[in-house]
């Protein structure tokens, strides 16, 4: 069934297809439509979920944590300051190994107050134990939402998927809605290994002393380490059943490329168009889309980038006092490649606070990367007018 819908509604449809049982969310621009659509679905009975209204994002996450602990499939969505307000509870979900799925509509963080997109909200939640997946299209959003539940429940890790605010959340695209029966076969009801059960009472999240805390963190690390492989298998199933897959990373026209643009989110689509034009002109340029930021797909990236001469990382984010976050992580991942295979990495910071990244901007980035000397500075800011 094809439908034209905005990214926010694609999120809601994904949650509906996954037959989530408990939703708790608090509205915030640009995520509000997700909450509205889901509450409509709950109200009209097309989604048999309990929708818990709350007074804040902290409570929203607390509510889905409680519900998830009972074994329910749970979902929430937030953005920017809302996500930041959840921060404590994000740790609780991660450490509690609760397979919650959440959509974050990427929005810049204030002040200055800004409702447009960049990735600093979700990237600042890097160390909370959540899987992070950055989506490019509305189709990918629907598909990823469903797959995220399978991934989360297989390994008992929470999964956050990201949509660029407005560029994806409020842009309508045709979306093929997978058949519910097939989705049900793909994603059966959740079986929780531990759950709150009045017949067998246990306290969850209670005191863990130094003699066991570290072991539990190790188990968490192990679970996250298994994510890329698990996702690959899940995507294979999805491909078989629905004919689409995305990958933790995706190389586009990267064969024999001497220069690769490393992107995430909607800027990938723009980069694809630029690369198509460059390829037509005979230039050996490609795109490497990084969908998964946590766990960081180190092995996949080393394989994909080893031997490429120059890499331009497009970061719609910045770690103040350091550089673009994807670029820094990538440098770290590639550091111990043999010198001959290690690409020169150009880290660009651009598009913050929703500033448009046009084909012209990407052309400038390509020119700079191709002709520039290897920068001593970690971060190259594109288009700063001072």
């Amino acid at each position, binding site marked *: 069934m094809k439908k034209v819908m905005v990214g926010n509604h694609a999120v809601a449809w994904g949650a509906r297809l996954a037959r989530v049982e408990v939703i708790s969310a608090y509205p915030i621009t640009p995520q509000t439509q997700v909450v509205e659509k889901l509450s409509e679905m709950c109200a009209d009975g097309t989604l048999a979920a309990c929708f818990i209204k709350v007074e804040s994002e902290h409570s929203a996450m607390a509510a889905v944590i409680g519900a998830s602990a009972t074994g329910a499939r749970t979902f929430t969505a937030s953005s920017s300051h809302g996500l930041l307000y959840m921060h404590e509870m994000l740790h609780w979900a991660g*450490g*509690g*190994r609760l397979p919650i799925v959440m959509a974050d509509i990427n929005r810049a963080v204030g002040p200055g107050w800004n409702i447009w997109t960049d990735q600093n909200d979700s990237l600042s939640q890097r160390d909370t134990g959540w899987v992070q997946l950055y989506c490019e299209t509305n189709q990918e959003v629907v598909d990823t939402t469903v797959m995220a539940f399978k991934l989360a429940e297989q390994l*008992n890790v929470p999964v956050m998927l990201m949509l660029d605010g407005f560029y994806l959340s409020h842009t309508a695209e045709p979306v093929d809605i997978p058949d519910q029966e097939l989705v049900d076969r793909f994603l059966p009801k959740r079986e929780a290994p*531990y759950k709150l059960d009045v017949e067998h009472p*246990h*306290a*969850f*999240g*209670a*005191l*863990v002393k130094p003699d*066991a805390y570290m*072991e*539990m963190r*190790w*188990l*968490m*690390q*192990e*679970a996250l*380490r298994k994510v890329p492989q698990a996702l690959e298998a899940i995507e294979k199933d999805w491909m078989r059943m629905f004919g689409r897959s995305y990958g933790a990373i995706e190389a586009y026209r990267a064969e024999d490329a001497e220069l690769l643009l490393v992107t995430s989110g909607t800027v990938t689509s723009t980069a694809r168009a630029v690369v198509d034009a460059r390829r037509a002109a005979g230039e050996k340029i490609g795109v490497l889309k990084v969908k998964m930021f946590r766990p960081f797909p180190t092995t996949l990236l080393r394989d994909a980038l080893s031997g490429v001469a120059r890499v331009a990382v497009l970061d719609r984010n910045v770690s103040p006092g350091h550089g673009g976050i994807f670029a820094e992580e990538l440098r770290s991942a590639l550091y111990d490649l043999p010198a001959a295979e290690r690409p020169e990495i150009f880290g660009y910071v651009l598009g913050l606070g929703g500033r448009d990244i046009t084909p012209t901007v990407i052309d400038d980035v390509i020119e700079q990367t191709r002709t520039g000397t290897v920068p001593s500075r970690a971060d190259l800011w594109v288009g700063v007018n001072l």
Partner: protein
Amino acid sequence: MPETIATTPGTRAVPEVAISTISSLVTRTGSWKYQFPEYHDRVAPCNAGCPVGIDIEGYLNLLREGRVDEARDLLLAENPLPAVTGRVCHHPCENACNRRALDGAVAIHAVERAMGDLAHERPAPLLKGAPRAERVAVVGSGPAGLACAYHLARFGYGVTVFESAPLPGGMLRLGIPEFRLPREVLDKDIARVAAHGVEIKCDVRIGTDLAWDELTRTFNAVCIATGAHTSRALDVPGEQLPGVRPGLAFLRNVNSGKRPKLGKRVIVVGGGNTAMDCARSAMRLGAKVTVAYRRTREQMPAINEEIEDAMREGAEFVFLANPLEFTEKGGRVHTMVCERMVLGEPDASGRRRPLPTGERFTLEVDTVLTAIGESSALEGFFTDVEGADSGLRVDALGGTSRDLLYASGDVTDLARTVADALGMGKRAAIGIDRHLRRYHGDTTELNALRFADGNLSAARWLRRDPIRRTAAVNKVVTADDLNFTQFRRVPRHAEAHLESDIARRGFSEVNSGLSTADAMDEAKRCLNCGVCTECDVCLIFCPDAAITHAADGAYAIAMDYCKGCGICAAECPRGAITMTQDRP
């Protein structure tokens, strides 16, 4: 790739989530606390606001539990005339009701009315105390006199009520029209008072038929409850003209079954219930009625419902109009000349004071009914009693300046409503009981009989309060003390009214009240402010599972585990849990 580097031999099985392996009882979280939750029932604002001193919250709570007969008995413990007050009381309880802040006050008067009517069909067992030798006379059979007699009878005294009119009821019968209070209803409520052994002697006027000092000689105590039956004069020129009449006398005629002739155009002067009753009665006799009042709608002392009914039935209102004189034509009143007023600063009553503007206007009129207030007059009365000429001065228990002479109701200088009269009658009964039993304890102990700073409870005076209260604190619970998130919005039930066209044509009761089923539903809207109803919200929300609910209904808090977080008190729907920093 993450790897482990073993620094100690051997591994242990560690679950991937922090799940308890032993009971959490080992963690005595109680040591963390600096404040303590305590169950304290407090006072619902309706109870404190009821001039009668009815345990409204108590009987609504019994109704919620389906204990209808017990609810009836609890209501009757304080109020001898619930079918009457359910119809005519100005219900300050509803103004006080905390549910106003949620979705509208509980329609307490409508529930009371239904209970009053129910008590006629299913009479309560008569409660009579151990018989006492003393006899008490009550002068006047209005609400104050009946209340005093009723409670005294229930305390065990022989009581005789003297009434100057042919039938008992006082202002309830002579002042309030049938379309507000059907006589059959009044008769049944009075019959229950009489059934307690109260002797009611009608057509006896004390001071004329029987001297006051003879009365005080014959009886051990006397309570004066003769009311206020004289319409206050306007004191303006032309007031003596034919066609200008005291409203009260008019009502007395109509209420005695007479149908006095009125002119076509009637002006009622005043804004109280007597004025509204005059206006509505006059309309029923075919007159075109205008109400002239010197302030505005907001300051009218009449019950809101009655103002609305009068308006619905077609009365016109001229506000900010102060009569200056009446002019005559052909020997009868012809016009009322008024001065236009303007509202100034609030006066002692808290209402904005009308101030003259000098602007005059004239209304043509055939009959004027004056209803600007009533005063009391006592014939052949003791001249040495304080307030004998202006309104008797009484103490907290109705005692006048003369020993064993008590007073209640409109004859005193206190508030003039049916509810206040019933409350004063009860206070006088308790005062007389204390006095005759030579019980002269400290009057501060009376505070234990009150609902907060409200009226006294007869049930508490008799030590027969059937409601179990947990460590009660005599303080009113405000809306801020409640947790409204625990309550669903339920609209207040509306009473059915006669169509105004039909109502205007006769004297049938206009407000037909709520059906019994609706009244029982309405009772369930009570939030039980300040009173534990064993709803278990505290127990459910306690993060330490430290609260247990015993079979007898009592809650216990395991202080070894209560960490003093205060969630129980914050979540309690009705403010029945108090946090204290005083170690219990």
